[in-house]
């Protein structure tokens, strides 16, 4: 590793250098642009909007549960609400946000590419996502209401006898569209990362965020076609008289669960891995250190990706028709690479210079919340424990710990990369208020639900007249949900308050990776010049010559050195 850097050279592309891109503006620009940054912004705005919609559903659900026999919404409306809350949050917010929004903007820049490999396909992905979202949500405006069979749509509840009406079909249609959108994004990301890296950006010099997106993209390609196939089967069952999932015609209802979770569990990692990547970048930058155990991190991500396709039936332990030991050991094993990641994150902060910006606070909040969600996940991998927590609020609390951790990571990423996307920083003080609301709200929201689950409260119930004793804890959880809602309000207020107020400059955080080398926002085709790439931190190496990452150390050596240093 040399300390001397060649002077930066112009990155050649077919685009004339230093010339602003001239194209249509306004709504036409939005409609016709194939620039990955514009598409990424569209993704970001749409998915945050979906988060707000899903959040409103959540607040109504929590309000309904504050008293045992509440009639704020009817039983039928309640079923629609939690179905659409889950569907919007998983399919329309977390997924597209994770692999559509920031991935679109950041991945090409991080690897020094001028755009995604297939810009028009990329635009098509966005349009399919938007129309899919509209399709799914329009269920509320048709007779019979939106889909009401839970976001997992278990057959035979989802067949045409038990849930007739257009709402369910719109749900299937919306999912088909967003499913194809995801598949196209997966193709695009894979091709971009394999073929458009800048010279010197070898695979093991890619930032962790890009690595995680590559593995996410491969998971998308493996999992989403299964879901699409399943949805088509479900549609055929509903309308063309097939009996794939119905007992009457010799079908097997559990087959739907197998298909759904064969997609559904990788999907959890499709949501999580990009956020893990975001958190990794944030922690490294705000600790002013390289990612600790970079290669271990990559292999841990690969292991998670590989194992995630062999654990789907841990969602089905209580069906009585799955092979318990196989899925139990596979699910438990996923804890190992996840633990490695956790320790690598701590190792990155260790002996660093931790700067508590809002983004970093969100990342630390992620660590704590994800620790809770991860550990309770280990319980659910053990069939005897799953038997008594399955489909109770324990499970609800577990996955809300996980997704709220992901939400913090996502918010941190918006604070961290937002300035790169818009050119302006967000207000840090409001950001910190938002963080504390979100962090405290999340814990106040999830912990009562763990206890409720252990006390036997099943999920997806609108009323609990026989158990007035559950009211107190439900009330506490609702307060937590309200705090989370307030944090979202704080976020929106922050955007309005900071609108074009604090110019960010090219590199406000002393970032490590290539996106901090270009301007904020980056020019059309991203770079006027590129630095020499000799590690996974080209911008850091350029800005801090003489502070390259230390080579492989040994424990004893590290201890001796730290003694000498201190």
């Amino acid at each position, binding site marked *: 590793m040399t300390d001397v850097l060649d002077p930066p050279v112009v990155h050649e592309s077919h685009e004339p250098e230093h010339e602003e891109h001239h194209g249509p503006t306004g709504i036409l620009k939005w409609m016709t642009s194939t620039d990955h940054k514009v598409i990424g912004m569209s993704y970001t705005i749409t998915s945050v909007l979906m988060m707000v919609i899903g959040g409103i559903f959540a607040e109504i659900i929590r309000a309904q549960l504050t008293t045992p026999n509440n009639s704020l919404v009817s039983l039928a409306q309640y079923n629609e609400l939690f179905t659409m809350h889950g569907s919007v949050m998983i399919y329309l917010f977390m997924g597209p946000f994770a692999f559509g929004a920031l991935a679109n903007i950041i991945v090409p820049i991080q690897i020094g590419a001028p755009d995604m490999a297939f810009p028009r396909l990329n635009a098509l992905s966005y349009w399919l996502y938007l129309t899919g979202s509209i399709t799914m949500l329009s269920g509320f405006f048709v007779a019979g209401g939106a889909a009401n069979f839970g976001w997992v749509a278990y057959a035979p509840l989802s067949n045409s006898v038990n849930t007739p009406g257009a709402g369910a079909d719109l749900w299937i249609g919306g999912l088909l569209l967003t499913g194809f959108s995801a598949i196209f994004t997966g193709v695009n990301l894979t091709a971009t990362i394999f073929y458009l890296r800048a010279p010197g950006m070898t695979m093991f010099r890619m930032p962790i965020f890009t690595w995680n997106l590559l593995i996410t993209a491969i998971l998308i390609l493996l999992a989403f076609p299964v879901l699409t196939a399943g949805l088509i089967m479900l549609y055929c069952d509903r309308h063309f008289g097939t009996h794939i999932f119905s007992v009457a015609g010799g079908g097997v209802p559990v087959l739907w669960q197998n298909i759904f979770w064969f997609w559904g569990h990788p999907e959890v990692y499709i949501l999580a891995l990009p956020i893990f990547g975001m958190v990794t970048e944030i922690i490294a930058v705000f600790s002013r250190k390289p990612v600790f155990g970079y290669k271990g991190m990559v292999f841990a991500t690969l292991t998670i990706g590989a194992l995630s396709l062999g654990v789907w039936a841990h969602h089905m332990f*209580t069906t009585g028709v799955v092979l318990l030991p196989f899925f139990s050991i596979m699910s438990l094993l996923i804890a190992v690479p996840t633990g490695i990641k*956790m320790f690598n994150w*701590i190792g990155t902060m260790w002996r660093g210079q*931790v700067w508590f910006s809002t983004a970093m606070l969100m990342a630390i909040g992620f660590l704590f919340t994800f620790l809770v969600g991860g550990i309770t996940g280990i319980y659910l991998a053990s069939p005897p424990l799953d038997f*008594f927590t399955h*489909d109770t609020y324990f499970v609800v609390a577990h996955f809300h710990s996980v997704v709220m951790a992901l939400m913090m990571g996502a918010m941190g990423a918006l604070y961290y990369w937002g300035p790169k996307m818009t050119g302006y920083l967000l207000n840090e003080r409001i950001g910190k208020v938002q963080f504390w609301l979100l962090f405290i709200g999340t814990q106040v929201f999830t912990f009562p639900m763990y206890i409720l689950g252990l006390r036997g409260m099943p999920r997806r119930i609108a009323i609990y007249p026989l158990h007035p004793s559950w009211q107190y804890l439900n009330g506490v959880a609702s307060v937590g949900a309200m705090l989370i809602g307030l944090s979202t309000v704080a976020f929106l207020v922050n955007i309005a308050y900071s609108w074009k107020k604090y110019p960010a400059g090219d590199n406000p955080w002393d970032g490590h990776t290539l996106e901090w080398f270009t301007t904020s926002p980056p020019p059309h085709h991203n770079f006027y010049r590129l630095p020499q790439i000799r590690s996974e931190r080209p911008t850091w190496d350029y800005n801090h010559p003489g502070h390259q990452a230390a080579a492989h150390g040994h424990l004893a050596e590290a201890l001796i050195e730290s003694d000498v240093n201190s």
Partner: protein
Amino acid sequence: MSRLALLPVAALALAGCVPTFGAAPGATTSSKSAFRLWQGFTVGAIIVGGITTVLIVWAVVFYRRRGDNIPRQSQYNLPLEWTYTIIPILVVLGLFVATMVVENKEEALPKTNVTIEVNAFQWGWQFIYPGKEVVVVGQTTQDPTMVMPVNENVHINLTSSDVLHGFYVRSFNFSRYALPGVLNQFTLRAVDVGTYHGQCTQLCGLYHSLMVFRVKVVSQSQYASWLSAHYNPKAANAAQAALNQQTSSIVPTTPYKSEGNN
């Protein structure tokens, strides 16, 4: 396997001084061992989670930014990385062994002469006592009650006549799906007399929130007198005939259970 079985025994020894952590201690034999597994897991979770929390807090408190100097750019420490790869693997394998011991006990189907056919439907429960000419059926708030004798292996055949339902009794630390087209079999051996709340846990449509039932564990003699008090061959035979028709096409055991645990 006997050496491996030591793990839950150790957990059992601990159980005396370990709190419940919010779970039910269990009213059946297998729910008691599941409860002890829960305690073991929770103790482990508190240790692992506690260590990790301390490490995070330590890093956050002691390495907060105190100046503009650049810290040592250490990136790898292979011995350390191997340590926190191998230890979790060992922990996970330990948890898996403990899990399997409890699970095999829970999944076992010992010989019995009390069988109850449980049939879930939208939105209620039907309990048929074959050979005893007794049937209990009830919807939503009518509180259908499944009466079972204490200290006796009770064999449950669970199925559903429409959509998926979840047979869940909190005090038994147990739940199982009622699936149309599948006959799920399990054994409950209650050791504590009492009345327990049960509820459908799997979303089954409009009145899912109200699909409750009760399980009443009574002494052998009370059970016998309850059976004779509810003797109703006409209703029971009709219900049994309907159920037989519904389950006629079902293979009664799932493939791997028939190999492993019978």
